[in-house]
């Protein structure tokens, strides 16, 4: 398992560390650890989410964290999003999902899509520069064959 984030925001000012922590807490709620399998936060998928959000929706990392915090207060007065339980974080994500606002939809879609995208793609096990792939454990869990030159036995698969 990777112990350090590999990628950093390259476009502009790095988001506030507290914002990154809020995104990490959201990732933890979206893809929690399951049995002995690591969850998204353990695999540093929040780094992928922050990087993708920052480049696809510039400025939205801090905005996302701010909104997570604002909705957290409605769920438990006085608490920050990172202090909420998994169930309470789900309440926050659900409330944000119900808003009929394009930017809010982008934020919630961004959190979910980039979290799942980081978790179930090669991202957590791939070194782009070296082209080295260590198949993520999530692939084994879902039964994905990984990159393939072909499947000679496709009929019996």
């Amino acid at each position, binding site marked *: 398992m990777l112990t350090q984030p590999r990628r950093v925001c390259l476009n502009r000012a790095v988001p506030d560390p507290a914002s990154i922590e809020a995104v990490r807490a959201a990732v933890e709620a979206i893809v929690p650890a399951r049995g002995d399998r690591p969850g998204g936060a353990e695999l540093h998928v929040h780094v992928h989410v922050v990087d993708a959000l920052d480049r696809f929706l510039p400025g939205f990392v801090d905005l996302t964290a701010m909104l997570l915090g604002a909705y957290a207060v409605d769920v438990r007065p006085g608490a920050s999003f990172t202090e909420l339980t998994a169930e309470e974080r789900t309440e926050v994500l659900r409330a944000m999902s119900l808003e009929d606002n394009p930017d809010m939809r982008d934020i919630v879609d961004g959190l979910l899509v980039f979290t799942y995208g980081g978790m179930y793609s090669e991202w957590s096990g791939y070194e782009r520069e070296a082209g080295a792939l260590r198949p993520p454990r999530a692939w084994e869990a879902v039964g*994905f064959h990984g990159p393939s030159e072909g499947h000679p*036995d496709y009929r019996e698969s």
Partner: protein
Amino acid sequence: MERPDVVVIGAGGGGPVIAKELAERGLKVLVLEAGPWLDPDVDFTRLEDDMGSIVDGRLRWGPADRLRSPWMRRRDGVGLILQAAGVGGTTLHYNGISPRAYPSAIHADWPTSYEELIPYYERVEAFLPVRQVEEGELATKDALFGTGCEKLGLAHSEARDVTTAVWRRCHNAILPVAKMTSGRPPRYPDVEGCTMCGHCLVGCPNPVGAPPERKAKRATNVTYVPTAVATGNCEIVPNAFATFLIHEPFEEKRARIRGVRWRDTVTGESAEQEASIVVLAGGSIESPRLYLNSDLPNGADVVGRYLTTHTQDVVTGFFDREVNPDVGQVSMARADFPGFGTLFTQGYGPQSFSVVLAGGGGGFWDEDTGDEPWDFAGRWWGPQAVEWIEHYHRSLSILVCTDDEDHPDNRVTLADDWPPDEHGPVPRVTYRPTPRSKDRQDWLARKAAEILRAAGARRIHRANFPRALLTHLMGTMRMGGDPGRSVVGPTGEAHMVDGLYIGDSSILPNGIGGPNPTLTVQALATRTAERIVTHLP
């Protein structure tokens, strides 16, 4: 190159068709492509995020330098837009599905008949080639789909021209399935054809060792482009983003094309090329954007209007048996419902699967679905979502492509409330399905669920995207006889601009009934190339 006879803007699904047809007739053709020219053997890693990420994937809509941000679009009613920049364009990540339009969709708005299109279809089908998947070639997921259709009593057909509800093995622009030996790497020249790797959506590099012209999926980068270049009459310039169509006044309120200005996306330098004929083939977003950014006449305010998208959705079934959605050509079986749209199997990797299943749908999994034939819908997260995502290997997804209505309010304009990028004012893409389009989508989603249930699915999920997923973009520069409702005339030339032709999916007057549009775009491009030849002095 010496002064070209024709400049083509865009090397995606349509532009290279026109380039090849003209170059073979001896015309000098310059093709400008906004994105890079990737080498399938070197650059296609078969990895979902590395290839397909909308942020920094090799097949994204953005510059070659992946450390730079993608090119932005203002979205209104739109979730994701999937378009690839690069030689081959969006055919780099298309399924290769190449059905013809439904004859019933070629209606009064079209300035041509279905019968007139058939010879052009046949030419493209023979060149690529397009062939129907054979019965013994179906992967597990596609055989399951066929089983469901048969149990529902849906008629089977092998026809290319579809007028009634049927199910078919797909007509794909993919070489025949290779004869492979278990336990041996399926590499060229030991094997030729499709190796059933399942990576169509992230760029086809197989068989390993095959020259580009023998790669299995017949994207234009391995078909039309090399054929055009081999004539010696065609030059491809990658990383060249067209920013202005140079023109001069011509006749009453019209203009005449004089050339193209573009920006090198690597160096940032600008360049120009004079030409008396320009073919606009940048896709249904960039073609109207460039037209509007060039201040060309648009008196009828029709440029950019009538965007159609097939109002897509995904319905997924979970089975008690192995399905392996990552094995085989991603789509090998389909069902057609003229008047409503089309359904086809959608294989993909776990990244796309998880995003579709849990990431972007409408509503939540734990909500009551009433009398609908699916068990849950929309998005979810947490332990339950993880558990269902882990059933990936037992899932079959069906993509819904709706015969959506063409409506003038669904359109591409310039986003005057956003800052311009290095290529000028950015496009604003607005799409909302009409009530009738939504009804048709719902009907198709129910039909997909019925097929899955008949095939043995135990649980069924519908994504029900609340915002449009744009993979099939059509219209915005559409063809027609009425300048008040169309941008180009029956020959493919713009009503208001002499010498400007359209060679991409923006020319389609409607969504062709729901079938995948690339083959029809390529047939029309073949036809337009003929018209261009007659235009030349």
